[in-house]
């Protein structure tokens, strides 16, 4: 055995993927040393509450109790950056210039919020949301007297809008595309959700081109500036225009990247000693040909499990149907499968009641499901996607027909 084989499994990124991986390794009986390195000061925690409960006590929700890492013999190194990988020597270099050897390296570096390259983007009060530290800023700024503008109507932006509105804040959502959630939801769901937000008093402006932020004399943002010259006054501007995979370490080390680290169905990168998991990866999903960046907890956890199996040399479990969730006002949304052009949308349930599902069909097979307050439809849909069950579309659209009776 070479020295490198006795070296620890080193995981870069102590987020949801990295945090899950260390536990799974021990569950699978891996007894060797494990080092989990993360830039953030906090041990791995749940990010969903950052946009759903940032006003509440439940904001801080660690993945595991702190004793966990010691009990499991995991070396947790927080507030530390890995700055380079040497794939030949099988070492990583840390911010303090020390080096650490690895037997297997797992990159779980996640993604970082995209910034808007416009004038005023660095003013005080122009913020992003990815970390607990970001959420605490938001929490302090949530106040009925303060106006909030959200740039970008993605899931995170709409969740924050819903919370802020529910505590009485004046909220405007600005979206460059002609509908909310343009990148991630169907036009049907976009329209229903827009109606819901507007009915709660949120101003939603689509096809809005943000060209800058205007500041006051103290360097604090006072308005968001649009391409047509309009200014939307605000006390805080949250920019939620997507996230960029943090693949810079990997690409500097010569690993194959393509807007994310390219991995196979077992999280292997182009280097035999390096795996990658979570938001930073571009991965195979279902039966679609192109690789996909998933950005969801179920995907990060699934890959963490795959990586652990690779490390201990066990068969890698098969991937499940991708899914994620979002909470907006009283709507608990759950989505599964992949939306692709050419699918036919079928709505089950009456959207005005707050319980409805949009099924997306490829012929008579369900390819994707988007549900609100409809867990049964979601679970049945996910199962039918997995089993490629043929369904009767007319019966599927009829809420009076039980979901076991929609199969063709």
């Amino acid at each position, binding site marked *: 055995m070479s020295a490198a084989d006795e070296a620890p499994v080193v995981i870069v990124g102590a987020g949801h993927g990295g945090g899950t991986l260390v536990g799974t390794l*021990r569950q699978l009986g891996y007894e060797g040393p494990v080092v989990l390195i993360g830039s953030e000061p906090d041990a791995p925690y*749940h990010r969903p509450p950052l946009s759903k409960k940032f006003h509440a006590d439940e904001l801080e929700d660690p993945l*595991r109790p702190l004793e966990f890492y010691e009990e499991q013999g995991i070396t947790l190194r927080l507030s530390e950056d890995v700055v380079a990988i040497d794939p030949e020597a099988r070492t990583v270099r840390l911010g303090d210039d020390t080096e650490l050897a690895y037997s297997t390296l797992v990159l779980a570096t996640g993604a970082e919020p995209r910034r808007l390259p416009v004038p005023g983007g660095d003013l005080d009060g122009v913020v992003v949301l990815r970390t607990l530290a970001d959420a605490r800023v938001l929490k302090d700024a949530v106040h009925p007297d303060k106006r909030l503008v959200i740039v970008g109507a993605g899931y995170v932006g709409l969740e924050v809008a819903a919370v802020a509105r529910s505590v009485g804040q004046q909220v405007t959502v600005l979206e460059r595309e002609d509908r909310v959630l343009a990148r991630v939801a169907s036009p049907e769901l976009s329209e229903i959700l827009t109606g819901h937000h507007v009915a709660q008093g949120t101003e939603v402006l689509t096809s809005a081109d943000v060209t800058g932020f205007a500041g006051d004399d103290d360097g604090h943002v006072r308005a968001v500036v649009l391409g047509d010259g309009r200014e939307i006054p605000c006390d805080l501007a949250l920019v939620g225009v997507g996230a960029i995979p943090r693949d810079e370490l990997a690409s500097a080390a010569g690993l194959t990247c393509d807007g994310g680290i390219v991995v196979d169905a077992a999280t292997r990168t182009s280097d035999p000693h390096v795996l990658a998991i979570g938001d930073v990866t571009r991965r195979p999903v279902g039966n679609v040909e192109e690789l996909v960046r998933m950005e969801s907890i179920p995907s990060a956890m699934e890959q963490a499990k795959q990586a652990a199996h690779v490390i201990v040399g066990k068969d890698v479990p098969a991937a499940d149907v991708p899914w994620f*969730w979002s909470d907006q006002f009283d709507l*608990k949304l759950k989505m599964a499968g992949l939306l692709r052009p050419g699918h036919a949308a079928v709505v089950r349930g009456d959207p005005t009641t707050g319980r409805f599902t949009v099924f997306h069909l490829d012929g008579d097979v369900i390819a994707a499901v988007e549900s609100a307050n409809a867990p*049964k439809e979601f*679970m049945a849909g996910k199962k039918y996607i997995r089993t490629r069950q043929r369904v009767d579309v007319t019966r599927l659209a009829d809420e009076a027909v039980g*979901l076991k009776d929609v199969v063709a």
Partner: protein
Amino acid sequence: MPSVTYVLPDGSEQTIEVKSGLSVMDGSVANNLPGIEAECGGSCSCATCHVYVEGEWAAHYGKASEEEWELLEFLDTVQENSRLSCQLVVTDAEDGLKVTVPEEQG
């Protein structure tokens, strides 16, 4: 502290102390027991914390809420005593509780 016995997917049993007020899911996650995944962190959204509540304890906990049962209903592994463990809070009244973790989640 109340103690809870988990029958794990490989058939082995683990009895652990769960801090009063935490859920059966929390106890599993804190002790790194295999089986329960808890993707959603306990917000009754994911159905990856499925357990069977054994014996009298099923009646003790009573029926799942409608939302919870809808999440369980379409699982291949569902049984009458199925529950989502993030919805089962453990207090001194549940000392001695026994649950079985199915082989597959989700």
